């Protein structure tokens, strides 16, 4: 199965939904194809642990698969529903890690040596460092918007806030990040 990047940010086109397992499965499969990498990117940014992100991503899709029949379109689009599941799984993982007091690996350090040189590399490093210093809440917003490609409406659904509230939060986070980048630069 080849899962595409799915960075369009649009809601996936669900097949006609006749009752039955076939339709539910087809819808889930389409959702998986469109969202696999997005979910991983979001979870990885939130956890800052690629291995943990893989586990949580797999768990999120498995949970979504088990609950695919309970999805109610009136309560939101499938992508928001899926990211809600992924968020809960990621937060559960964070709770578990907090209990176990596990030291997290720093994935950014692993990637530090692979960057280009020059101006772009400096800017990326500044952004990366600023991102590292951000709180988990801010990092989550960045991940949902820029790594998972959610629209502001979907972002609001996932976080359980209004769309305008989500826009304000996102704007504040970007401003915070921009200032942090300037401070680093």
């Amino acid at each position, binding site marked *: 199965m*080849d899962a595409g990047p799915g*960075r369009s940010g649009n809601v996936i086109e669900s097949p006609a939904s006749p009752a039955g397992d076939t339709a539910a499965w087809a819808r889930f499969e389409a959702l998986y194809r469109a969202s696999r990498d997005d979910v991983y990117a979001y979870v*990885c940014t939130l956890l800052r642990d690629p291995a943990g992100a893989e586990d949580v991503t*797999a768990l999120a899709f498995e949970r979504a698969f088990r609950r695919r029949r309970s999805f109610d379109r009136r309560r939101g689009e499938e992508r928001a529903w899926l990211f809600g599941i992924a968020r809960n799984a990621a*937060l559960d993982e964070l*709770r578990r890690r907090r209990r176990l007091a596990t030291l997290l690996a720093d994935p950014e350090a692993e990637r530090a040596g692979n960057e280009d040189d020059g101006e772009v590399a400096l800017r990326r490093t500044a952004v990366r460092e600023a991102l590292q210093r951000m709180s988990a809440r801010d990092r989550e917003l960045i991940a949902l918007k820029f790594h998972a490609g959610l629209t502001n409406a979907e972002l609001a659904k996932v*976080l359980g806030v209004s769309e305008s*509230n989500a826009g304000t939060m996102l704007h504040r986070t*970007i401003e915070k990040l921009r200032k942090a980048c300037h401070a680093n630069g």
Partner: protein
Amino acid sequence: MRTADEFPLDPAIVARLEAIDATLAGEPVDPAYAEVAELALLLSAERPQPRPEFAAELDAAVERRFRRAPGVSVPGPRGGGRARSWWANAWMASGGLAAALAAVIAAVIVIGGGGSPSGPPPRVLLPLRGAPLNGAASTAVGASAGASGSPAGRLGAAGGAKAAAPTTTTPGATRSAGTLATPGAARSSATPGAARSSATPGAANAPLAAPATFGPAGVQSVSPPANGRKTIQSAQLALITSPGRIDAVAQEAFGVIGAESGIVRHSTVTATGGSDGYAELQLSVPSGNLAQLMNRLSQLRYAHVGSRTDSSQDVNDQYLVDVRRLADARALRTSLLKRLATATTQAQVDGLRAQIRDAEASIASDEATLASLNKQVNLSQVDVTISAGAVPVGPPSPGPSGFTLGRAAHDAGRVLTVAAGVALIALAALVPTGLVVALVAWIALVLRRRGREQALDSV
């Protein structure tokens, strides 16, 4: 964080957000937002990518629809799955436990009889004796059996029985009162009979569609076996019918009594059309016909049995004593007569004649006693009362199979009533349990959500 308030965004913020969206969508952006656009691109470039091995592994798991294949490790949480499984199992167990608890409570209540849906419905038992006879309001349609045109009088003609005497209370009735249960006791003693009758075929074949627990319709005669011994039998039967059918039931009872060669010693029928309608019959019936009479009276079409008391008293020893005393008296008289025949003096003759008179008086007394005892043994005393009360409308006589549409409908209604009662009891147990479970679930959900948010803050 989780506020749902809607407020208009600052147009400048909206413009910046739109510039970000345009950048991510690859569209041109106003140079005024170049910095934000660049930041968006840099952030987007920081997007982590999954390892190809993980992507392939997850693809395979999705292809398998997350079924565990032997030898294949499905990527999953380290401990999260177990935690969820434990959570789900706990909830399933608690749900099952609550349902089982409710079922047990319902069963205990039903079996214990507290509000038993299968138990007898509350009803007012009218007094078996001494029922109020409202002379002003009532219309007496029958008086004593000796009255002309009275049911008992007609019975005497129809049944060919002996003329009934319009007496009030016979010595037999007085005598049997010692062995008969009091009215109150009769009712209580009839209760087991009701339960018993539900198991007898007679109850199943009773013409009334009334449930077996409502009245011991069709109960069999309960008396010890005679085994050739002399016994005095008596019975009391309390019938309940609808207020408008007192006279009809009484008339039907008279017919049955006549058919069984019974004698109505006393009868009073007061039909008022209301709940104070009442009929009282005092009968004598050949003891051989007692069981049949009681069974037939218990199965009258428009009445059901409120209570029934069967009594018996063994008088065999007394009978033998009386017979022996009579034989002795007769032997004494024979002996005296022989001695009289051989008497030679007037004094001897006078003395023997006096003794013979005494012996004959004793014989007469013993014969009367024996005759009375024989009469009590041969004729059983029966008291029948017919009261107005709540009674299901009697359906027409059942067919040969004993199954009618009316009875089926009644049984179906009964089954539905019992089922509804059981469901109501179960609901009464389940609703509080469900509320507690829902409250606990809600609290757990809130705590879980709060814990997740706290986990986000603590990182």
